């Protein structure tokens, strides 16, 4: 079955290279890998359309424009109100609602976001849709009504064959994403970008309930203290005893 419709989730995160001042956001690197895989499927003729989706506030439109410049055909923003918490449950619920409307054959997500490192959205989404899931994918090969997925697991590589529609999450070695070129950035400005209110998917019917996680505290680890020199081994043992290490 050529002509698959592929839905790719893209998240706007704090750029991995940023220091503390001038907070720069960019497309989550694992989402970029997922998007690259979707675009390559289309270039190979296995997919007909790649739709990029983001769940967040209006500023996520920038992230979607980047996704369009990287090869997505159209973008959808599921817009939440300012200050609304969007964790994996909310994102999965929104994507599940959108999948019900767009009816993709394949959903490609990054395995995790680099800001919260949750690694949950793909799995939650598959459960909500009752679709098969292939997480930590390092190789994706569509085979008609199935998709063969190679996963990176602790013991090595595992290969699964999943019936479509399915949810896959991309791991680091799936591919090396392309860079957006100027002509593509300009073309992206004209590609369709639709904004949908999150309340359509997160209001009636399916979850989520109010957020279950509350951030109590966020702090840096304590700065490293200076080292101390001692003159000989007995002095070292003395110090270790005094500090309660032995």
């Amino acid at each position, binding site marked *: 079955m050529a002509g698959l419709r592929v839905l790719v989730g893209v998240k706007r995160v704090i750029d991995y290279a940023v220091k503390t001042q001038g907070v720069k956001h*960019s497309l989550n690197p694992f989402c970029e890998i997922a998007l690259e895989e979707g675009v390559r499927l289309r270039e190979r003729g296995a997919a007909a359309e790649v739709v990029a989706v983001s769940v967040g506030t209006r*500023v996520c439109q*920038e992230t979607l424009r980047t996704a369009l410049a990287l090869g997505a055909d159209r973008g959808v923003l599921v817009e939440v109100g300012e200050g609304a918490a969007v964790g994996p449950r909310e994102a999965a619920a929104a994507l599940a609602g959108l999948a019900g409307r767009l009816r993709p054959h394949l959903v490609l997500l990054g395995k995790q976001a680099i800001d919260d490192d949750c690694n949950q959205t793909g799995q939650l989404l598959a459960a909500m849709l009752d679709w098969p899931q292939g997480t930590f994918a390092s190789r994706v090969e569509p085979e008609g009504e199935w998709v063969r997925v190679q996963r990176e697991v602790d013991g090595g590589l595992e290969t699964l064959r999943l019936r479509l529609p399915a949810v896959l999450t991309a791991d680091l070695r799936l591919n*090396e994403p392309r860079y957006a*070129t100027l*002509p*593509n950035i300009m073309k992206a400005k004209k590609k369709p970008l639709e904004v949908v209110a999150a309340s359509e998917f997160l209001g009636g019917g399916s979850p989520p309930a109010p957020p279950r996680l509350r951030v109590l505290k966020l702090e840096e680890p304590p700065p490293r203290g200076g080292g101390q020199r001692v003159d000989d081994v007995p002095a070292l043992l003395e110090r270790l005893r005094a500090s309660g290490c032995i």
Partner: protein
Amino acid sequence: MALRRVLGLGGALGRRSCCSKRPLPPDFVEALRAVVGGPNVSTAMAVCEQHGHDESMHACAPPDAVVWPQAVGQVQELAALCYRCRVPMVPFGTGTGLEGGVNAVQGGVCFDLSRMDAIAELSLEDFSVTVEPGVTRKALNSHLRGTGLWFPVDPGADASLCGMAATGASGTNAVRYGTMRPNVLNLRVVLPDGRLLHTAGPGRQARWAPEGLGCARWGGHVGAHSLPPCRKRAAGYDLTSLFVGSEGTLGFLTQATLRLHPLPEATATTTATFPSVRAAVSCTVQVLQAAVPVARIEFLDEVMVGACSRFSGLELPVAATLLLELHGSQHGLAEQQRQAEEIVRLNGGSSLAWAEEPEERGRLWAMRHSAWYAALALRPGCQGYSTDVCVPISRLPNVVVETKRDLQDSGLTGPMVGHVGDGNFHCLLIFNAQDPAEAQRVHAFAQRLGRRALAAGGTCTGEHGVGLGKRALLLEELGQEGLDTLRRIKAALDPHNLMNPGKVL
């Protein structure tokens, strides 16, 4: 020991530098601390030694102190202080140079500028960006991801961009995108006495923010607002060009405004093997004469290909090889590929297998960029010395073939690798520093090669700089008048010879 003999070799390669090391004046280190703070000054032996050498084989010459300024104002104060007390100053970026440029042969203070790492004034419409010395070329390209622009000068190492400006660096992309010189639009220089100079003019410090005047809003990051640099200027002597390639002998490059380029839409890379070195190099000349806008064209002789294959785990045929990369639009690329294939065939080259995915291209270029380490791996425990001559394209085939014969006659291990598109190639000489006879043969070979290049109308250093080792050859290349003019300019800007003494002149 081995290091001292290597220093002897370094001395023979150029006029022996005056290694007079006057001790620092009393209370000087305290005065340094007063400017930048205690944690940003170090006189520890390990720190000084780390700052006294680069990737070359020149013996480590540690400074007396290392300082880490955080802002240009501090650089100015420190420079003024050193100037008053007549203490030598050595700028330090990433320490990835190849000519001993950071070796503090007269001691003094090493200014490690890596903590000044702001990227500012990114203008997507004007294709320019401003960077401080702590920004390396990979960090800049990473920052530019998503803008459709890149900075193409690529010397292999992940070097500081201001350091690349200071050495006039080049790399594999120079044949299409140019070296540092045409890609540096403006420099903010701290002169030896602490004064601040903008080589293409200041007055771009206006801190107002008109919307849409070349300020970058991509991804929510807003750069400092100033007037973007213009493309052409005929206003006064070209100071920017003077400081590019000055190797830290005229001032500190504390900020560079760089010209960015659009990313190519499509890229394809391939290797091509040839029956002889001459065939490979002639093919290069013909590709350039046919005006194929090749982006990178690199030559590796059979020794280099063998070493790189083993080192990187690829299995390439062991023969004279060209590594070609083409950039263009989808249609333009197909045409370039056809042209290249035809010329390669005419020169007896193998058929071409184009790599277009980033992963495959990345593997090929990683293989090429690890050439230095692959060469060192040929004879573990030995030192390496890289020659860097550059000759006009028309003379390249003869010079390369003669050099190869000279290598074989001298019995030296010297895999050859080069940016043949610019007429520039390197012999990576791997020799046992404990063996004075071999060291002498290396020295003699390098001298002959330098002279061969000069006789062919070329230069003794295409991209690495003069540094410590090529000063004698510089005299032969420029002549007495040329060198005297350089000395007069140096004396005008640095009358007490405090900026990186012992280098270039």
